[in-house]
């Protein structure tokens, strides 16, 4: 009989100590607690954000961030304390603080300035101080803050499926580390993500030295640095220097790395102050219809697999002396339907702009296209002018994912370390990664989620929750090589570890804390001088000036070219052997964003589909295969099959299917996607993706299943119906008639539209007197007639806010949409509600295709032009919403904002009906308080009939009307995210864009404090006191400009004087404060497709019914007055 040893004698009095964690873990209570499969007290483990815990975390993070703006990097020893006895220096309660940090991306970083309210980060902005940033970000970065507060994040350490303490996990890591060390790394493999972190580089070098026999692999499911791997140096492109740009399937505005920087460069080259200003020209060769293709002046539509043939043909024209290129071009016939003249003229244009052109190759393209781009840039003398390379040291790895998978499968690897990433989801299907991973004896998994990789080998995994970058210490380099810090804004919410921490522990390095590691790395960069001071400056500024390595040309050895060219497979897709393109999704990326509700509900910039992935197909191919939108089809490729809904995409290449990565994920008890991502999208494209065709593959078959699937789409109608909503012209038309944008419009000559009389030398005509004197007529009159006594009661003499959006610059990337969502606490509503047209975005981006009006729905055209228009509240001076609200809930303020008093709104929705722009959003349910499960019809749970945790919801509401029916963990975390300066709207009220009134007010308060007795309370752009609104700040293209119309020198006043300025639906006399600058296209008259786009296609549609805007015509010439330009000038002058 086994004798149970007596428990260790405990001291009679005083504090009790455990001798080890094991002793604690051995107590019967703990055992029982552990063994209940779903312990009733599961929350004891997984709910670390109880109020008490929150206070702890917050107080800890106060310490962290509370050292004033300068010393934020200095971290005191970790001690959890209670709220301040004495406030930290420089801290004012309620005033947000900003910390410089960076979001690490694949091989790069986005420099950031993060807003923190009471030490919880609430909003991400770009770091405008950074030499390579204007303070903008991309959409992914904007949304990344939601990931911090994701209740589905991994919150515990586990070993063999059991939750363990952090200490125990660290012990286990150390033990594994020493056994790896003892074996010199034999039978050990490391799988890492791409990273630009010098610290990681340093640690890896150290570890590789320590574990010489270990296998190291870097795996990215979407590899945006393919060029670097081929050529050893990543091209760093300055698009603002380029006059002619050729994109070879390079979606620099959407799915490539560094979009925030490239868009800015591109947009800079397209801004025109006057008609004669120079503009760049963009040629795009692509299969998918991408943001770049939409922006392009000339777009050549070929299947993705055929881009290389076009690239080779262009290259052969530009570098006829290069035999390798000409022979490749000879080997690859031009794809069907491609006009040789297109190639020739494009090449001529590039040649004519040698040194001021750039050829860009996209990440989806094979090495050959990258090599061609590099060769051509060199041949055209672009290197050093538009294209730069720099010697950023890269970690060399000795293996790759396929070979590690093979070794795992054959039992050659005992210890597998997966640092970040989710290979069980993203690895090529042929590797059968999940099975392979299960064969390792020990798996160390550092990840932010208990995802597919976590669930793949539960019995052998030691799982470590990975910190979000906003709770981590780290470093990174932006694409130009500048060193940027990754600073935590709060202590880790779930007490996780960073990649650096884990590497240091495994390598048994002396310095184990990531903060110390980063500092140590920094020493090498700091150079001579006071390291401490440089370090402080580094953290404060968010970058280390001058840390970019020196540049060089791309090394292009003959080997690289031969190897790249020889692997080109000239298979041509047909309708029976379709091409499949796996593309990085513009919402959920490669799946890393799929549990992010903002990203899921962010309308795909082109398809406008949300909460789903679709099978993109061209109009022609869909007709040949007899499939239509929503039909579920089965796609077979190399024995693998997936099923997904068809989506006919105008402008898509024929015989090609576009499959978005990162969807079709599930959540099981063992782990998985998370509750947001669960079952979003019918298919998981990774199931079809093999290591031979990571980006595209030819040979797929499509069969109809007969089923249909409802796809949620935020924009059902794609055509503008010939209406002058977005106005555009070609450059030469613009030069001939610079004021063409005002000369659109039709029916009501009294208001705006058509060339104003004063512009053609006739005396202006006054507006007819209104029946009802609007408070703003006073303000108007002041501008028009001298000496008129005006009512000033409602009118501020200091500020009159206005906005201008340049449609020439906007590429439709959507950063603004997410920035607005983040800034203004805009809730997500879920797929069911989007299908019912109830999405809540205050700012939407309308995407119009040009094509046969009204027939658009059924006969999508093959080569459309598309345009984007950010649409938000226009802040009409004559707001139609205001006059119909029966309770005065939407009114004008004295600074020209159309404001919503949420508290006063009873929700008649009349304002929305009367809004011609339909930019108002209504809370049909308590979107903030309902989880997505509770937003699925047709029966929406009423609090009268539902309960949560066994408590009747009505009773719960009675006790605490604040909490809603959301699960507690969602509620507790998501409320940390909210911007405290913006009301969280309840159900039944209308909401809409406020021009970020909270930012304006904050700036005004700041200015008032500063002004003191001097009374100078006006915000001035030249002093930098005029706030940037959220969308403006996030816009990489600087297309959105906000400012004071009373300041004649403000950028917005200047833009309103631009002759491209126009009001949307101006004839309604709404007098919007938000006006647009017409889009200018810059096509090349020598191109063969010029004939069809000599006039932009939307303009062709308009002219069909309304006549040409390039001449004064009809009643317009006789009667019109008060054109928007004149109107704007009045505003500007006074």
């Amino acid at each position, binding site marked *: 009989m086994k004798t149970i040893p007596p428990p260790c004698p405990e001291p009679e009095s005083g504090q009790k100590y455990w001798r080890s964690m094991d002793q604690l873990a051995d107590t019967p209570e703990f055992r029982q607690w552990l063994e209940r499969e779903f312990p009733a007290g599961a929350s004891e483990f997984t709910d670390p954000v109880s109020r008490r815990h929150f206070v702890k975390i917050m107080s800890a993070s106060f310490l962290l961030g509370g050292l004033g703006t300068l010393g934020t990097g200095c971290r005191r020893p970790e001690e959890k304390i209670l709220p301040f006895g004495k406030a930290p220096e420089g801290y004012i309660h309620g005033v947000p603080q900003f910390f410089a940090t960076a979001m690490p991306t694949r091989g790069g970083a986005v420099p950031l300035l993060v807003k923190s309210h009471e030490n919880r980060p609430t909003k991400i902005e770009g770091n405008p101080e950074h030499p390579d940033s204007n303070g903008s970000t991309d959409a992914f970065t904007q949304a990344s803050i939601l990931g911090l507060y994701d209740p589905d994040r991994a919150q515990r350490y586990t070993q063999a499926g059991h939750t363990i303490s952090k200490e125990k996990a660290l012990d286990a890591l150390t033990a594994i580390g020493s056994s790896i060390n003892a074996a010199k790394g034999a039978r050990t493999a490391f799988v890492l993500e791409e990273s630009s972190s010098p610290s990681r580089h340093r640690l890896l070098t150290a570890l590789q030295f320590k574990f010489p026999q270990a296998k190291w692999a870097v795996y990215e499911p979407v590899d945006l640095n393919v060029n670097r791997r081929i050529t050893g140096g990543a091209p760093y492109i300055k698009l603002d220097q380029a006059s002619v740009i050729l994109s070879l399937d390079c979606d620099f505005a959407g799915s490539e790395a560094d979009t925030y920087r490239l868009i800015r460069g591109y947009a800079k080259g397209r801004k025109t102050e006057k008609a004669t200003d120079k503009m760049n020209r963009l040629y795009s060769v692509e299969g998918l219809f991408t943001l770049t293709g939409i922006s392009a002046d000339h777009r050549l539509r070929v299947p993705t697999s055929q881009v290389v043939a076009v690239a080779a043909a262009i290259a052969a024209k530009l570098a006829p002396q290069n035999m390798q290129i000409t022979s490749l071009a000879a080997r690859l016939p031009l794809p069907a339907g491609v006009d040789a003249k297109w190639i020739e003229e494009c090449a001529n244009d590039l040649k004519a702009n040698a040194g001021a052109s750039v050829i860009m190759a996209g990440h989806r393209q094979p090495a050959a296209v990258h090599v061609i781009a590099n060769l051509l840039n060199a041949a055209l003398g672009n290197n050093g002018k538009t294209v730069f390379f720099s010697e950023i040291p890269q970690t060399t790895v000795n293996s790759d994912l396929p070979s590690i998978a093979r070794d795992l499968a054959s039992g050659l690897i005992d210890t597998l370390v997966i640092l970040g990433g989710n290979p069980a989801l993203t690895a090529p299907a042929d590797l059968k990664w999940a099975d392979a991973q299960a064969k390792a004896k020990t798996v160390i998994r550092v990840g932010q989620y208990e995802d597919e990789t976590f669930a793949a080998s539960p019995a052998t995994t030691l799982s470590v929750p990975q910190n979000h970058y906003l709770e981590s210490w780290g470093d990174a380099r932006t694409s130009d090589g500048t060193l940027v810090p990754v600073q935590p804004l709060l202590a880790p919410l779930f007490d996780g570890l960073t990649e650096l921490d884990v590497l240091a522990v495994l390598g048994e390095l002396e310095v184990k804390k990531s903060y110390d590691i980063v500092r140590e790395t920094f020493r090498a960069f700091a150079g001579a001088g006071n390291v401490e001071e440089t370090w402080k400056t580094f953290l404060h500024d968010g970058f280390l000036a001058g840390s970019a390595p020196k540049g060089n040309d791309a090394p292009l050895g003959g080997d690289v070219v031969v190897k790249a060219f020889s692997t080109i497979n000239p298979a041509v897709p047909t309708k029976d052997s379709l091409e499949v393109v796996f593309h990085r999704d513009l919402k959920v990326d490669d799946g890393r964003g799929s549990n992010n509700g903002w990203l899921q509900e962010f309308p795909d910039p082109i398809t406008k589909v949300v909460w789903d992935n679709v099978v993109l197909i061209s109009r022609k191919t869909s007709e040949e295969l007899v499939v239509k939108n929503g039909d579920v089809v089965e796609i077979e490729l190399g024995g693998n099959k997936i099923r997904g809904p068809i989506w006919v995409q105008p402008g898509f290449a024929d015989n090609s299917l576009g499959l978005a990565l990162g969807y079709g994920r599930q959540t099981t008890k063992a782990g998985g996607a998370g509750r947001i991502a669960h079952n979003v999208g019918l298919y998981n494209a990774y199931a079809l993706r093999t290591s031979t065709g990571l980006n595209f593959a030819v040979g797929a078959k499509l069969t109809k299943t007969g089923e249909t699937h409802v796809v949620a789409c935020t*924009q*059902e109608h794609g055509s503008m119906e010939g*209406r002058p909503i977005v106005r555009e012209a070609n450059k030469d038309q613009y030069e001939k008639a610079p004021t063409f944008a005002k000369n659109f419009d039709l029916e009501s000559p009294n208001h705006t539209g058509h060339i104003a009389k004063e512009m053609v030398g006739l005396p202006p005509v006054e507006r007819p007197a209104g029946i009802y004197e609007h408070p703003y007529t006073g303000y108007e009159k002041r501008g028009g007639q001298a000496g008129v006594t005006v009512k000033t009661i409602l009118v501020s003499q200091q500020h009159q806010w206005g906005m201008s959006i340049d449609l020439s610059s906007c590429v439709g990337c959507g950063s603004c949409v997410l920035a607005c969502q983040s800034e203004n606490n805009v809730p997500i509503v879920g797929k069911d509600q989007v299908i019912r047209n109830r999405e809540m975005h205050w700012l939407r981006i309308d995407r119009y295709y040009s094509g046969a009006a009204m027939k658009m729905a059924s006969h999508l055209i093959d080569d459309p032009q598309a345009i984007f228009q950010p649409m938000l509240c226009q802040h009409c001076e004559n707001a139609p919403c205001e006059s119909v609200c029966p309770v005065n809930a939407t009114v004008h303020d004295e600074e020209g904002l159309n404001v919503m008093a949420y508290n006063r709104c*009873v929700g008649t929705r009349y304002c929305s009906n009367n809004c011609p722009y*339909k930019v108002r959003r209504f809370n049909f349910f308590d979107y903030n308080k309902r989880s997505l499960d509770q937003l699925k019809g047709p029966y929406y749970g009423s609090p*009268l009939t539902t309960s949560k945790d066994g408590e009747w919801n009505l009773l719960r509401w009675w006790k605490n009307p604040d909490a809603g029916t959301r699960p507690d963990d969602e509620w507790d975390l998501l409320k940390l995210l909210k911007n405290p300066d913006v009301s969280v709207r309840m159900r039944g*009220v209308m909401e809409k864009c406020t021009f970020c009134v909270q930012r304006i007010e904050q700036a005004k308060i700041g200015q008032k404090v500063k002004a003191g007795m001097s009374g100078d309370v006006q915000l001035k752009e030249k002093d930098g006191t005029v706030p940037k609104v959220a969308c403006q700040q996030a816009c990489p293209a600087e297309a959105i400009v906000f400012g004071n119309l009373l300041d004649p020198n403000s950028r917005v006043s200047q833009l309103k004087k631009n002759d491209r300025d126009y009001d949307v639906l101006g004839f309604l006399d709404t007098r919007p404060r938000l006006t647009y600058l017409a889009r200018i296209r810059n096509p090349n008259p020598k191109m063969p497709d010029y004939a069809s786009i000599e006039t932009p296609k939307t303009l062709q549609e308009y002219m069909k019914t309304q006549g040409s805007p390039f001449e004064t015509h009809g009643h317009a010439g006789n009667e019109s007055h008060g054109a928007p330009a004149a109107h704007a000038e009045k505003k500007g002058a006074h």
Partner: protein
Amino acid sequence: MADSFSKELPVIPSVPKELEREPLVLNKRPIGWISDQISGVAEGKTPKWWWALFIPSVAITGVCFAMIVYLMSTGVGVWGLQIPVAWAWDITNFVFWIGIGHAGTLISAILFLLRQKWRTSINRAAEAMTIFAVMCAGIFPLIHIGRIWLGWWLLPLPNSNSIWPQFRSPLLWDVFAVSTYFTVSLLFWYMGLIPDLAVMRDRAKSKIRQIAYGIFSLGWTGSNRHWSNYEKAYLLLAGLSTPLVLSVHSIVSFDFAVSQLPGWHTTIFPPYFVAGAVFSGFGMVLTLMLPMRKVCHLEEIITVRHIELMGKVILATGSIVGYAYGMEFFIAWYSGNPYEKFVFMQNRAADPFILGPLWGVEPAPYWWAYWTMVSCNVICPQLFWFKKVRTNMWIVFVISIFVNIGMWFERFVIIVTSLHRDYMPSNWAYYSPTWVDIWQFVGTFGLFMTLFLLFMRFLPTIAIGEVKGVTPQADPHHPMGGAKGGHH
């Protein structure tokens, strides 16, 4: 002398048979019979048909309130509303019921002022219908708002914050117009009831009935003074109600006309809405009266002539409505406003068979709604040109149902088709109702029927005193005149 005198008397030629007006009460029934017949409905044993109608009606009323509770507790999202279609069945139903509420006051006020004696047989029931319809109508604006519990903010109540409603908003005008209309209609109806309530009181056998009718008949004795005051007050109220008939629906139409939405922003709306309201009101009166006269055996009081006359009103107003539809098209074309033209042609009329292909446009998403409306409202009533149709009670009943359907669709077409595709094509969307929308609407029929059945059961459905007044027998010199025919 006597002879010569009598010779001098002019001979009054008797009216030829074919020109003789049909009497308003048939079969020369004595006055007492009228009292018996009308009061009998409310006095006898509760008939089986009444229970058969009443029980389901109450059940459906229950559904109505269940839907309201669900809506209030959950959110307006339980309806199919969305952006851009932020009003749909809710306001459609509101306007529909308000429109029905027009016939009663028109019959009781305008026809009274115009000395149309035939109104007496139908005015009581029509007024009751008006009141119940306005009650049903009133539900919708109240519950359609997002925060129902704050609906009272639309009332101009003095408060410490000095926040007033916004008097420029047509929704506020609605509040005043509808509440005024309801109040005046109720007063008018009640006042007309007083003499008849006294009849009921006098005839009542049970104590409870005596007390109840006694209280509500306000001590009516039928004295000359009472009658004289009554007539004066009735005339005054009729005068007061007459402008209301025109104002209510004009103001309801302002909800649309004052906006700037193509399809709503139309100056023809006020008269067009009033005509439509009268049209739909008479449609509903017929729908109710035809079965009522049958089951309550009132064919001799609500005669075929009454039905025919109502058919003529429907024909006239239906034609006005048809004219308005045509005029909307003309103006849309004549104004040259492409947005207007789009609404009428491409949002409404373009069907997939004739007009769509003819104009070369895609069929309008709601073409079926538009053409349902036109068929029911414009084409159907044209059958009333034929006397055979007007006098065939079955056909009249069917047409009256069509009129009801058509007028519901008219409001649906105006509201939904205009909203679902307006200025910015980017936010166009298709609207579909949810089960809550449908049951909410059905539920109001339950409420309406419940109230109407209660009215039939407990109150005289026809103005006894007034009907008697228009019979020849009411003339004391008539052979059957005075009280000779029996007690009353």
